């Protein structure tokens, strides 16, 4: 059914439809409407399970991990400071191989204190072993959360679904909300076995020696690699049953492009407008939307950018000491290509600072000009 929903509420609908049994959360702007909406649903008896109102995000993730180990479908949501506070628990979750799905509403990290959209919070958690997907709008948020459960429960790995703070979380858009029956056909009830079996008791996650640890790590690494077909399949099935699909990347007008803009999240929407305008003007510009951060869509990106001379990556984040994170990831994926594109990095929209189509056009032209900085990213703001 088509509804006007803010991104946060779309996520809440997805959690309800996925028949999540256990939600542990702690309020933080701009996540709070998800938390509140789920609380309303619990109060009205619309949630399949229970809410646990924890005293911190760290505890929220801790409770999700143990509930998941015991054998129920779990969810949490957070942002910024809360995600940072959870950091230890993110490693803990992926190490425990639990299929938790979390929605992170991207928001800048203090200090300085501010509350705008910024992807540093989730991008800087890229090494914690979680799969990560970035959504462009409320519809994609809803669909990705549901898909995330199927992926997580097949791979036994936790999944982070990121949406832009305010731009996606709070903007109201038309969203097609599937009915329960349709989602049930896609996502069966949770059936990962409990790891706490009274009849066959075991001690799980205890101390190992260095060689054993390395073995588990390697196994996890291989299992993350093995999610690539799982992700493709999950998406294909969703498309088949629900009628919508996304892909780990989306290439727009990249065929024969002179310059391709690379974006993620809500900025992609603005970039679409900028690219269309440039084509109008006769600039051969294209757009590559990156949805998956982990596992990084290496093959897909190389294929999409084969033969493209210039690439401009726009990061709504920066890693001090080495530039935008998406830019780094992209460059490392392209390494070893024959005739790789020249990649320039741009830092824009930090903390939700405005990024207009004009500004994006300027970045593309700057990349095309051949005079752009290559060693360091260029900061772009009004």
């Amino acid at each position: 059914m088509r509804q006007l929903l803010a991104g946060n509420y779309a996520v809440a609908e997805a959690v309800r439809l996925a028949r999540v049994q256990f939600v542990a959360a702690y309020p933080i702007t701009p996540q709070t409407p998800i938390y509140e909406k789920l609380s309303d649903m619990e109060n009205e008896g619309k949630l399949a399970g229970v809410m646990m109102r924890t005293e911190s995000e760290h505890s929220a993730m801790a409770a999700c991990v143990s509930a998941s180990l015991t054998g129920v479908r779990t969810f949490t949501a957070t942002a910024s400071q809360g995600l940072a506070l959870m950091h230890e628990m993110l490693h803990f979750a992926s190490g425990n191989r639990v299929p938790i799905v979390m929605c992170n509403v991207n928001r800048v990290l203090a200090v300085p204190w501010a509350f705008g959209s910024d992807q540093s919070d989730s991008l800087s958690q890229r090494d914690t072993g979680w799969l990560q997907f970035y959504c462009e709008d409320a519809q994609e948020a809803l669909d990705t959360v549901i898909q995330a459960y199927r992926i997580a429960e097949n791979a036994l790995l936790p999944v982070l679904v990121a949406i832009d703070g305010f731009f996606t979380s709070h903007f109201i858009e038309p969203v097609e909300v599937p009915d329960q029956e349709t989602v049930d056909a896609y996502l069966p009830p949770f059936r990962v076995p409990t790891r706490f079996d009274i009849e066959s008791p075991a001690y799980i996650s205890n101390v190992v020696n260095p060689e054993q640890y390395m073995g588990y790590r390697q196994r996890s690494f291989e299992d993350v690699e093995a999610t690539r077909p799982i992700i493709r399949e999950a998406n294909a099935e969703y498309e088949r049953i629900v009628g919508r699909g996304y892909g780990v990347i989306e290439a727009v007008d990249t065929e024969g492009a002179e310059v391709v803009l690379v974006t993620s999240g809500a900025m992609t929407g603005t970039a679409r407008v900028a690219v269309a305008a440039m084509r109008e003007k006769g600039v051969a510009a294209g757009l590559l939307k990156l949805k998956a951060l982990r596992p990084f869509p290496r093959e897909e990106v190389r294929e999409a950018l084969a033969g493209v001379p210039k690439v401009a990556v726009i990061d709504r984040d920066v890693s001090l000491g080495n530039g935008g994170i998406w830019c780094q990831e992209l460059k490392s994926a392209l390494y070893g290509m024959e005739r790789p594109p020249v990649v320039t990095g741009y830092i824009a929209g930090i903390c939700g600072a405005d990024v207009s189509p004009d500004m994006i056009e300027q970045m593309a032209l700057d990349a095309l000009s051949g005079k752009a900085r290559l060693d360091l990213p260029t900061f772009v703001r009004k």
Partner: protein
Amino acid sequence: MITEATAKMEEQEYMRCGHMACPGCGEATALRLVLKVLGKKTIMVILPSCVGVISATYPNSTFAVPCFHSAFEIAAPTASGISAALRLQGREDVTAVAFAGDGGTFDIGLQSLSGAADRNDNFIYVCLDNEAYMNTGIQSSSSTPQNTWTMTTPGGRRGRKKKFMQIIAAHRMPYAATASIGHPEDLMEKVRKAKAIKGMKFLHVLTPCSTGWRMPEHMSARAAQLAVETRVFPLYEVIDGREYRITHEPKGLPVDEYVRIQGRFRHFTSDDIRRLQAEVDEEWALLKGLEKGCKA
């Protein structure tokens, strides 16, 4: 003498021989007795701590019940998550129990314990208190008594031991109690009571550590007995945060008997002991007053 309830206890043990605890370890005794009362339908949570070592490394386990090695500060929410899931699965006949040390309870775990208590989540939290971070080599915690030697307070700790049961009482849990390995029947009876109650239960168990308290290996039980009988560590229950019940009338032996058997107090002067006696007497009077007051 053993009580009828103990005599009828299953012969089955839920802790296995061959674990790596120091000889004479007080925590090992506590773990064993708690699990023996809780029985087979138990899921236990443990942390990096002495219990982490005692529980054994992969591929072995000291425990014959399902066990999970959680992280230092999250004993409580880990148990919260398990108990919530058990309820969702209709497995409420299984008891969730979390074991944490004094460090994981008084210090780094206090916040998350408070949250779980606030929610009255259904599990038993057992604090195994040996009054310092022993696993990492005897560093002081907020459970370390005043003036005690530890490796990080070589001149004696300045702070006083937190009155933890007061913090617990403030959270109004259905059931909280202190216990000691020197009084095993009292401990086991409290575990039985806790098991039968829904909601959050807290047991503060004194588990002397011969290594950290600088005593010969065989002294851990005696030290626990003396702690109780000198009133340094009284045995009582707090129901709903307001009803206090003393479960064992101590003899009121002079605290000197408790102090002089421990090397960590070796530097105590007679003034220190007098001060300690005065403090113990005052706390006992306060406790008696609380017990009396709730009968109004």
